[in-house]
């Protein structure tokens, strides 16, 4: 049976530029995924709660204006809530040195400007079975 990924597309922090998150969310939805979309400025505890309640496979964080700097805080909060079997991806404007820090904090992948939407979808399709297997094993 084909696995249908469940994805939360959201923005944390202070920035409100949401063209990227809207376009990505619409594309993933049209690609057959179950997409939960929120407006910008979600608090980290709210993202953790939503991810837990909705049992999502992937959390996509869009960051255009340095909000990625608090993604390590999100990773800590997810771990604190025992939510280790969810993949966090970040898309947007992320300088190289910050990408290193995000990957070290446990982010699965950073998508930079110019990424084809299909590449994002392919990554999610690829990682979801692994997430589910990890969850089943736990």
């Amino acid at each position: 049976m084909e696995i249908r990924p469940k994805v939360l597309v959201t923005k944390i922090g202070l920035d409100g530029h949401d063209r990227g998150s809207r376009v990505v969310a619409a594309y993933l939805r049209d690609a057959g995924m179950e997409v939960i979309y929120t407006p910008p400025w979600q608090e980290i505890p709210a993202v953790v709660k939503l991810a837990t309640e909705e049992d999502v496979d992937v959390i996509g964080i869009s960051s255009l204006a340095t909000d990625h700097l608090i993604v390590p805080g999100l990773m800590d909060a997810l771990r604190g809530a025992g939510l280790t079997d969810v993949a966090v991806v970040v898309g947007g404007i992320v300088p190289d040195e910050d990408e290193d820090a995000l990957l070290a904090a446990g982010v699965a992948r950073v998508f930079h400007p110019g990424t084809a939407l299909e590449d994002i979808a392919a990554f999610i399709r690829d990682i979801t079975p692994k997430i589910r297997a990890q969850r089943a094993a736990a």
Partner: protein
Amino acid sequence: MNKPLDKALLEPAAGEDRWQREYAAQIGADKSARNRSGIPVKPLYTPNDWNGDRYDADLGYPGQPPYTRGIYATMHRGRTWTQRQLIGLGTPADYNARLLGIIAQGATAVSLIPCNSVYRGYDMDEVPAELLGTCGVVLNTVPHMDACLADVDIGATSCAMNDPSPFTLLAFLLATAQRRGVAWNTISGTSNQSDYLSHYVANHMFFRIALPGARRILVDHIEFCNRHVPRWNPMSVVGQHMQQAGATPADAMAFTLASALQNADDCVARGMDPDQFLPRFTFFFDISLSFFEEVARFRAGRRIWARLARERYGAKDARSWRFKFHAQTSGVDLTRQQPLNNIARVTVQAMAGILGGLQSLHTDAYDEALSCPTEFGARIAVATQNILREEAHLTDVIDPLGGSYYVETLTDQMEAEILRTLQSVLDAGGMYEAVANGIVQRRIGESARRFQDEVETGAQTVVGVNAYRVDEDRSARPSQPKPDPQTMREHVAAFRAYKVGRSQQAVATALDTLARAANDPGENVFAQVVAAAQAGCTHGEICGTLRREMGFGHVQAIV
């Protein structure tokens, strides 16, 4: 001697028919081309498309209605556009150092970009410390504004500030002027992007107070400035946010004009005289890479506005008819790949804006798709403007593309397309109703998606992204400037100390008066924002009070 003439010379069919035949024979499969607004683009334009017989009615002369060729008689030959680079990073002292540097390099006006925490209506001690000052200057008080503008003669320098409702930065500026003994009637500049409608639709970060409150405070602000700060432009109607969010150039112009009509209608409903407030309306646009489309769109916008101001509002003062606009080269068109290519993109965008007749220009730094711009990138952006003006002589001739068969045809077509969208918004009850119902947001979302699909399929080339790719390592990209954490900690500590040292009584009284004004339609809320600033209230306290009384600005989640 009697050699016969070349046959080609005798061929009778020289002209458009023959060109058409030869073109069809040689082109092979002709690709249909459309611009970003969906208007078909032909391979050639001739007097059959536009012949100038409506020159006086449709074009006229610079400084004369309908202003298609420019709103002033001398245009850039008399007074060049204002070089208004957006800057803001770190603390007020950091900002001031960078501002003085940019003025020394040729910038002719102040522009101030506050930190995202300020945009959201918070003080620096209310948000995650990691985010402070990364995208703009962290200023929350009158002393901060005073420090930002140290050694700047504010009575003689135009100040433009990104300052959404309730316009605390202008309040801080007015309080600073008062401290320095500078009369308010000498203060000039613009409340950049004061148009709450565009914030609700697209630039959500600026949207602090719920729609009805934001609507009222804007009119209060216009009324206050017209009366007390007469050289200030309180109304900056914004198309830039909507185009950055994905609106086509024509739609962005239409939505902007619809917003201007909404705001003007609201002023009229308040009993204000159009010839008092319309001269202080300004517009703000994005300039995409679609060169001719942008030139035509600006020319069309000028023509439509001149007519609307006269016919709809009965404005008699020519200043009310003039479509003054600031424009910013589009960051959306910039790429992370091969970032230096962005200098070429910005150059073309800037040319479109200049030839489109703008009054003020911000050129993006080439590194904007990588990070908040570096000082190095910002310097090249300023130099680009200087080169276009003084080396390439783009300012020698007014409206140099006027009279081009293509540009005039396209100007007419863009005008028709803009009017169609504008009418659809008016049919939906005007811009306020249309955005409250999500109509505008949906249309923008659709065109954003359409453009992205064209990039994905390769129908729209983006050099370095879907074509002409090269392998590059991270050395091609500059590193992100970040404020010094220790300096920022000291800035926050000083802010806390400032709050303790104020007259708590004066602060409490001012916030109480502000709250009462918010609930009394007979009061002017902005006048009380200014009074609160003078009493020592902080940005977050003022925004927080109004949020509590008038509702927090939440936007709709529309995908």
